[in-house]
């Protein structure tokens, strides 16, 4: 079978907001992907995923865009996915915040959320994953986490924080440096 050459990736650039995250940034265009992974039909306690993206000079990146994909398993084991998207340019401190419910384990894996990161200065979108610090036992048995060198595994684990009776999981992304986030080849 003939193989076609893959189209090259290019940077998302700095000016994506009026298309990809129009509602969040206050542009006069609708958004079909929002900052929430859940709708009213999904039960469970709401949690917030929050964090910042740091560059190689440890500066917060204020013009990146993050997508989360979460998987939901039905009673008959059908898996569906939902996507949410946030830019880091509308909060004062460059943080992002998503609303969801804590994911349940799917197919024997520890609970996780898939992450895609795009920004000016990155010629490719980057894939990583959020795992949850309070899932110690399941994390220990997770095949993907175990395939990662132990000293870098922590870059994928979000810490649980409680503020004003709300549950936050903090997930910071480091593009470079000592605690550089692990990115996956897809």
């Amino acid at each position: 079978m003939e193989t076609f050459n893959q189209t090259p990736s290019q940077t998302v650039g700095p000016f994506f907001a009026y298309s990809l995250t129009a509602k969040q940034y206050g542009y006069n265009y609708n958004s079909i992907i929002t900052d929430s992974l859940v709708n009213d039909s999904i039960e469970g306690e709401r949690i917030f995923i929050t964090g910042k993206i740091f560059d190689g000079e440890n500066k917060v990146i204020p013009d990146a865009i993050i997508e989360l994909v979460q998987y939901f398993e039905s009673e008959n084991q059908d898996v569906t996915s939902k996507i949410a998207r946030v830019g880091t340019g509308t909060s004062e401190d460059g943080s992002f915040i998503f609303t969801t419910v804590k994911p349940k384990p799917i197919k024997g894996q520890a609970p996780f959320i898939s992450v895609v990161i795009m920004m000016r200065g990155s010629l490719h979108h980057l894939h990583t994953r959020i795992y949850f610090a309070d899932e110690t036992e399941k994390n220990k048995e997770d095949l993907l986490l175990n395939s990662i060198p132990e000293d870098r595994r922590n870059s994928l684990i979000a810490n649980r924080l409680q503020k004003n009776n709300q549950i936050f999981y903090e997930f910071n992304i480091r593009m470079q440096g000592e605690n550089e986030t692990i990115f996956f080849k897809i």
Partner: protein
Amino acid sequence: MESTQAPFLYPEYKSTIFRSPTQPLMIVKDHLKDLTLPVFGESHIQKFDNDLTKNAQINGEPIGERIKVFGKLMDENGRGIPNALIEIWQANSAGRYIHKAEIHDAPLDPNFLGAGRLLTDNQGLYQFYTIKPGAYPWGNHFNAWRPNHIHFSIMGHQIEHRLITQMYFPGDPLFEYDPIYQSVPQHARHLMVSKFSIDKTDPEFALAYEFNIVLNGKLKSNFE
């Protein structure tokens, strides 16, 4: 087959220096297989989402050269990827983005936003109308200008079917000076350049440019 992709670090594009990973990407493919992306439907698309000449009109038509962009979204075997979400954004005909942080001294067009979206059809084909974007200056180096381009964000149904890219126009004199374009290996740069099509040009209405897009990997059979 030789890679068609840019490196992560391309120092001539200065922002990559502190924003690109320094460690090799981890190969975890076996653990990621079968991961899907959500399906979007016609209910997510508004009437003029695929016509940027109409979706932001306030008191008239946007200024500039009206064009039609069309093509096929496919996997590496050339099979069309149906029902994929394509989101687009671009500068106006004067080379000005509507983005609030953009300060280039060129006029905004009250009748042009520069954003749109569409779904590919059951053959993986797509088409939209827009205004040909202008070139604009940026701060990468002295006298730096971006070639005319339209940004594409593409989301198929599998985790590997995600692509962010830019579509260029044939024969742009700025190609040789643009480090974002040049970051891609020379043999693959033509894959980002649309082709003018007289056959698909709408007589007395709009020139047509063809831009076919090939995603990473193969389409799984349940999406055929």
